[in-house]
């Protein structure tokens, strides 16, 4: 069981308030992702939950028990670090067994659990190696193994994939998601990569400067971003923002149109411009269209087959049913 409730939690380092009063509930078994640009306080928030930092005020409740002043070792949480943080002087087996040894389990039980974790994570052949003899992906698996043997109330992941190369990252992303499906344990995952957030989360918490901008499922955030920041942060490529008379036509200060909601053609459409850079991904092509009079660049996502060249004159048609409207304060108009 791992329901985690934060009540009016704040954190200051000296005079700098990193987390202003914040309330958040993570339900048992949920996969929650904290996402935001670097310096937004997402790692600090995770470390507050872990107990590696003390809260300046407010309360943290884990599993129905007050845990604000509980030391990290007693919170029943397991953490996977960005740097893996394996013990370099211990074999893989000893690394994974370490939390069990600290919990004073008997040797037979330790062996059983270590073997179990190793087979789940495909580490059985590496148990007697040192971390230094493993690849990045294997090291990350050991770190995860060390976390799962404890059967914690919740897993905390601090940007666990950012040291891996792109291909490995996609693989590990799937493995972590599968692990969550199998264990059904609460997971809190910190990342600056919105693709990771979208693909893995049950619930995304978007943070900016320590403030929660929005909490919701990936699709809620994609479909109904609460403000300009969330609208711009979620979705790739980024949403196009248009001000001025075109926005006024929709009764808004700013309108937002996602690149995938704009049709591009050579002859018809209410907006027009010239093609700048095209990014060919094979399945899709992203066109960066200039001189539209709307915004400096309008990004359009088209089918991979569509072929416009640099300098071509094109027409754009936004899907009006999915245009996002924002008011003067940057908040969504519903």
């Amino acid at each position, binding site marked *: 069981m791992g329901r985690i409730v934060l009540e009016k939690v704040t954190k200051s380092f000296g005079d700098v308030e990193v987390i202003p009063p914040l309330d958040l509930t993570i339900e048992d078994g949920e996969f929650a992702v904290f996402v935001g640009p670097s310096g937004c306080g997402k790692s600090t928030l995770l470390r507050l939950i*872990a107990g*590696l930092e003390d809260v300046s005020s407010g309360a943290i409740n884990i599993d129905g028990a007050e845990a604000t002043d509980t*030391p*990290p*070792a*007693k919170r029943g*949480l*397991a*953490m996977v*670090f*960005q*740097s893996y*943080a*394996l*013990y*370099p*002087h211990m074999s893989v087996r000893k690394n994974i067994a*370490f*939390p069990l040894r*600290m*919990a004073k389990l008997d040797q037979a039980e330790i062996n059983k659990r270590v073997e179990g974790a190793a087979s789940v994570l495909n580490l059985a052949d590496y148990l007697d190696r040192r971390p230094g003899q493993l690849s990045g992906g294997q090291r990350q698996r050991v770190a995860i193994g*060390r976390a799962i043997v*404890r059967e914690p109330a919740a897993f905390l992941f601090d940007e666990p994939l950012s040291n891996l190369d792109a291909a490995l990252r996609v693989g590990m992303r799937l493995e972590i998601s599968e692990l969550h499906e199998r264990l059904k344990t609460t997971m809190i995952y910190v990342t600056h990569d919105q693709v990771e957030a979208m693909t893995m989360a049950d619930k995304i918490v978007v943070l900016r400067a320590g403030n929660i901008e929005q909490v919701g499922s990936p699709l809620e955030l994609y479909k109904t971003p609460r403000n300009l920041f969330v609208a711009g942060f979620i979705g790739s490529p980024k949403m196009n923002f248009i001000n001025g008379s075109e926005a006024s036509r929709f009764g808004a200060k700013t309108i937002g149109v996602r690149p995938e909601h704009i049709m591009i053609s050579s002859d018809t459409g209410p907006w027009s411009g010239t093609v700048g850079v095209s990014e060919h991904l094979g399945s899709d092509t992203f066109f960066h269209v200039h001189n539209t009079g709307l915004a400096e660049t309008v990004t359009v996502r088209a089918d991979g087959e569509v072929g416009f060249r640099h300098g071509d004159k094109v027409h754009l048609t936004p899907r009006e049913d999915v245009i996002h409207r924002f008011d003067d304060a940057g908040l969504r108009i519903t």
Partner: protein
Amino acid sequence: MARSVTTQRKAINTLIAWTIGLLIFFPILWTILTSFKTEAQAIASPPIFLAFDWTLENYSVVQERSDYMRFLWNSVIIAGGSTLLGTIIAIPAAWSMAFVPSRRTKDILLWMLSTKMLPAVGVLYPISLLFVQLNLLDTRFGLTLVIMLINLPIIVWMLYTYFKEIPVDILEAARMDGASLREEIIHVLTPMAVPGIASTILLNIILAWNEAFWTLNLTATDAAPLTAFIASYSSPEGLFFAKLSAASTMAIAPILILGWFSQKQLVRGLTFGAVK
């Protein structure tokens, strides 16, 4: 062409290195050579390098006149004891300075170092008085304590530098894994810092072994270590160079052998973290 230049340069570098090495080693070599001469040959002018009558007489005289083993044992106890005690105190101190620094940590470190810049003789009187009051004069315990305190700043500084190299993530991981502070230090920090701790211990043993100021001033007979043993041969009734050299050779031999066997560890420890 390029290859021959490299070889030539290598030869020159080797030559320079050997010359400097021999220059540094020469006084020790000369002491050892002198210890095998007769007193007359020891002061002969021009000095005799190798062509003398090798004799072990000085060693037997020295051994007859004073009990080498007792001095050696005192040195071992004092150097080993002060190092052990100092390390036990310094590990937690360096841990807290490296991993939970306060606003004053840097100041404290500098202040500790500044005590090393103080001329020792400046505190000779108060320390001697304390020793008299506490009945510590000429005791191994007293000397161990004083030498430990004298070298403690260096031990803390060295360990602090090594600990700073250890990623804090790993210690936090241990904390998350349920380790208490004691378990964190014993199972994670110390094994990771072994090269650093080992070279700190070695260096400290050497410093404590060679410490002469305090050992000469605070001991007479019971607790006198090898430094006092050497000093007892520079007698006012006349210089006995050969016997002094024999005594010196016997005093430095143990530490020289220790240094020789641990040189790899020492160099590795002293350059720890310098090269990534």
